[in-house]
């Protein structure tokens, strides 16, 4: 037996395998540290933001959420009520318009479109998601705003003016309705691309089975595709909502930045994210900065909850697919 063979087979080989390799240890430690940045950053963001907002949280408490003010009484009173209202109205308004359109687009791409159309249209819709919000906002102020004020607004007010949401006529280009339309454009690509993947993952046997029983394509969608993808659709909508709630730039460009609560969508308003963005040129007092960061705390808490929920749903759905 040669020396080399002995080395490869004898107990020495076992020892070799268990040998401490500094290279492995270094790679392990460095890569592990990198992978921990996600958790560390989440913790750090939460801690830093809470610390900076603390003076305002102490002074206003939860009453901050129900106070409608920004810098009243010589910059001593701040509250988020109108911003929360604006955020809820614009985000849910956008989600309301975007949901049916996104589902329809996803159905078109996954069930109806021939392959070559899908290969052209799907990347185009993804491109819509890639347009920066500041560019959409620019388009919102200079193109969409005048259109809402000049054509769409008077039309809607004239025909549906008895509805509280259209009860006034738009006077300036910036209003909550323009913000809703911009947010709709932003969340459609997100929701539709997630839903398209969901619909494509529905097992073909199930759809074939329904078709064989004589169902029309719509009945297959309603009876097989939607129920199968239900949880995933919910997650997609939560992610879309999160995007709408957190969007600052495009909204601040078109919403008018006013501390006000109006039922009419053609009035100006403001959202949490947009108020923060609007104050970038500097806050005057420490209390104003703390109040600004308090707004960020509200956004942070919402986005943590919404994203955690959506991701957990996505993981549960993905787990089910693996088991199948």
């Amino acid at each position, binding site marked *: 037996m040669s020396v080399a063979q002995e080395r490869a087979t004898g107990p020495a080989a076992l020892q070799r395998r268990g040998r401490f390799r500094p290279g492995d240890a270094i790679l392990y430690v460095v890569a*592990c540290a990198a992978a921990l940045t996600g958790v560390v950053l989440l913790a750090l963001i939460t801690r830093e933001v809470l610390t900076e907002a603390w003076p305002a949280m102490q002074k206003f408490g939860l009453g901050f959420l129900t106070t409608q003010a920004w810098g009243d009484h010589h910059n001593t009173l701040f509250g988020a009520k109108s911003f929360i209202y604006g955020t809820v109205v614009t985000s849910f308004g956008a989600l309301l318009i975007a949901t049916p359109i996104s589902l329809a687009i996803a159905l078109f791409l996954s069930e109806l479109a021939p392959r070559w159309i899908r290969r052209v249209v799907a990347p185009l819709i993804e*491109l819509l998601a890639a347009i920066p919000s500041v560019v959409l906002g620019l388009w919102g102020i200079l193109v969409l705003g005048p259109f809402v004020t000049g054509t769409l607004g008077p039309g809607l007010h004239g025909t549906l003016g008895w509805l509280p949401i259209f009860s006034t006529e738009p006077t300036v280009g910036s209003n909550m309705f323009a913000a809703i339309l911009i947010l709709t454009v932003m969340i459609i690509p997100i929701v539709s691309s997630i839903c398209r993947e969901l619909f494509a993952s529905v097992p073909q046997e199930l759809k074939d089975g329904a078709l064989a029983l004589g169902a029309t394509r719509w009945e297959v969608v309603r009876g097989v595709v939607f129920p199968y993808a239900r949880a995933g659709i919910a997650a997609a909508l939560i992610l879309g909502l999160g995007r709408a709630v957190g969007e600052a730039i495009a909204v601040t460009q078109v919403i008018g930045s006013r501390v006000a609560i109006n039922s009419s969508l053609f009035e100006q308003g403001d959202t949490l994210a947009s108020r923060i963005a609007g104050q970038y040129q500097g806050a005057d007092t420490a209390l104003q900065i703390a109040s600004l960061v308090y707004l960020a705390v509200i956004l942070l808490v919402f986005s943590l909850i919404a994203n955690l929920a959506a991701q957990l749903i996505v993981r549960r759905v993905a787990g089910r697919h693996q088991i199948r």
Partner: protein
Amino acid sequence: MSAQAPTADLFRSERMRRRRIVNWIVEGAATVAALLAVAVLVIVVGSVVSRGWGALNLDFFTKTPALYSGFGPRPASGIANAIIGTLIIIGIALLMALPVGILTAIYLNELAPRRLAGVLTLAFDVLNGIPAIVLGIFVFVFVVVGHGQAAWKASFALAILMVPMIARSTQEVLALVPVSMREASLALGAAKWRTTLSVVLPQAVGGIVTGATLATARAAGETAPLLFTSALYSDSISYDPRQPVASIPMFIFTSAEQADPVLHQQAWGAAAVLIGIILIASLIARWFADRSVRRLKGER
């Protein structure tokens, strides 16, 4: 082929007719929705290009913004400072995010126990959903308050956005590298770290490039993280990352607020430049992604 009468009846029944009409309506609506989305894209990109085209000349890329008093001929003005500023901010952000993203992918795919990898991925996914404006506020209270704005602080905020994207697309390609390659390398006596860095990672270069370009495209257009970190800049060209620098998104944001139509045209021009950058980056990313997936899946 006899006694088929009931079938024929079924197809002519009122109920069947209604079902078919409903089906037809829904299919039509789905097609219209897809057309609508494409139409919106065409309208937005169309307005940007048609309105911005006039602003795109040599001066626009080589000059800095010129003050105009309102009298006499307008001096030539451009966004050279914003273009250079964006390059600086994105470059530093990429330097921060690229190693972290790649190492994260290596850890999650090659080294970590499954459970832990799941938890860490969840953290990145949640981090990815935090609004950009909150990231801007975080960097603001973390390193800007009391110290002032700087280009590298904007890069830091953008890097937080970029890491999850780079990690994800690297991971997707790492998962496609055949186990047999790792086993072959280990069987030849190479250490784990050697196998990972010189056998597995080179196979994933396509995924890394894809993630890096996509992250760059997204970060180049982000404005919210810059507002509180690199917004108080001067109009001259600055190469110093310790000072706030101008950027294309901030230029669009501030110009859009002005009433000056010439500034509006320049904002459209800057938007056209930004969309052009993003379009090219997406095409590059797609090309690399297709190529690397094809190579790994189809064994060349």
